[in-house]
């Protein structure tokens, strides 16, 4: 858990890139990333989740049936600037691998940080979806990302 966590709970309206809005509970409480695990998910080309491994289910707090069929953006934490996800989509849209540090929102409003890698899944020359693998980031990288995202959010 981050030393700065206050445990405060609030609600925030999140607007996703497709115009969808939802009111989410946000709790200032970090869920520590478990050692040795990888969070793995796959989506279709539009970002709709088609596969979630057990670590993803455990960390996000959603059950498998809630994750499958949902858009991956349900994990988006309001502290994440939109420009970070634009970079993700621009990069994988070019068929390239994307790496980044992401603060994810759990179902109960708490959060966890990951180092995420996303790659396009190409079968017989056709894009069929994306695979995202998340791993444990260092505390230094989290602190750097927090500072950067705060600045980027202020500019939005």
């Amino acid at each position, binding site marked *: 858990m981050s030393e700065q966590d206050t445990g405060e709970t609030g609600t925030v309206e999140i607007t996703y890139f497709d115009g969808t809005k939802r009111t989410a509970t946000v709790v200032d409480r970090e869920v520590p990333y478990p050692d040795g695990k990888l969070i793995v998910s796959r989506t279709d080309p539009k970002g709709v989740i088609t596969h979630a491994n057990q*670590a993803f289910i455990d960390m996000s707090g959603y059950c498998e049936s809630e994750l499958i069929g949902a858009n991956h953006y349900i994990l988006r934490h309001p502290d994440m600037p939109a420009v970070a996800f634009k970079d993700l989509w621009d990069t994988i849209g070019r068929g390239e691998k994307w790496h980044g540090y992401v603060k994810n929102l759990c179902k109960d409003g708490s959060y966890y940080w990951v180092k995420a890698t996303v790659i396009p899944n190409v079968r017989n020359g056709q894009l069929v979806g994306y695979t995202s693998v998340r*791993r444990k980031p260092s505390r230094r990288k989290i602190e750097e990302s927090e500072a950067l995202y705060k600045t980027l959010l202020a500019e939005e």
Partner: protein
Amino acid sequence: MTFNLSVSPDFAPDHISGWYFFNTWLQRTLDIGIHLELYDSFDAQRKDIRADKFDLIYANPYDASMLVRELGFQAVARPASQPDETVIAVNAESDFHSVEDLVEGCRVATTDDPDVHTMGMIMLESADLDSSNVEIKQHSSYVVGAKNLLNGDADVGFFLKDAYDELSELIRSRMRVLVRSEISVVHHSLLVGPRMAEHIPALQTALLTMQDDAKGKGVLESMGISSWEPMDVEQTEFMIDLIDTLID
């Protein structure tokens, strides 16, 4: 025509004879000639893979990527409930009690096993360690890596979980596990090359029923495998995509 079989060099030494028994069993079952060639170096084996020497390979996930996407191999089976996991261990008396305790300049004992090395380095990332700020020494086997930990020539060691568990009790009692990976979906697989493709249906049937007769079961036991599970194209592609995300 005689086909060529090879096995990823990270198999446990105790199972060498098992792979020879497997080769004999395969030849009798499929009624074809197969020559088994074993390696103790990943690089040497990879050179021969690229030279198109093999038709059947029990490959680690890292090499499976090259075999499937570059050389047209097809995965037909994987050992049941035997995912490839990595262990990071230290000397039992080490001051390091978690990965985050490790510091720049620490000495890492590794092998040329590409999956284990990659996973080991990924698990060091949470301590802000990478190849630029640790001292990596590659050893010829996990036993040699373990000995380096025990005699103080290394601070941490990377091990394939199965290989770690098969180290002698005496060696393991003098080591301590810092972290074990829990990935579950990365595993070795048996892959068939284009020249042998016509034998895939018979091979798959034979493998999936291998544990049902006494002879087949005995061969499996000698290889340290309980049974084979089928692997389809999409399962293989998924595993390869996952490996791709781990390679920078």
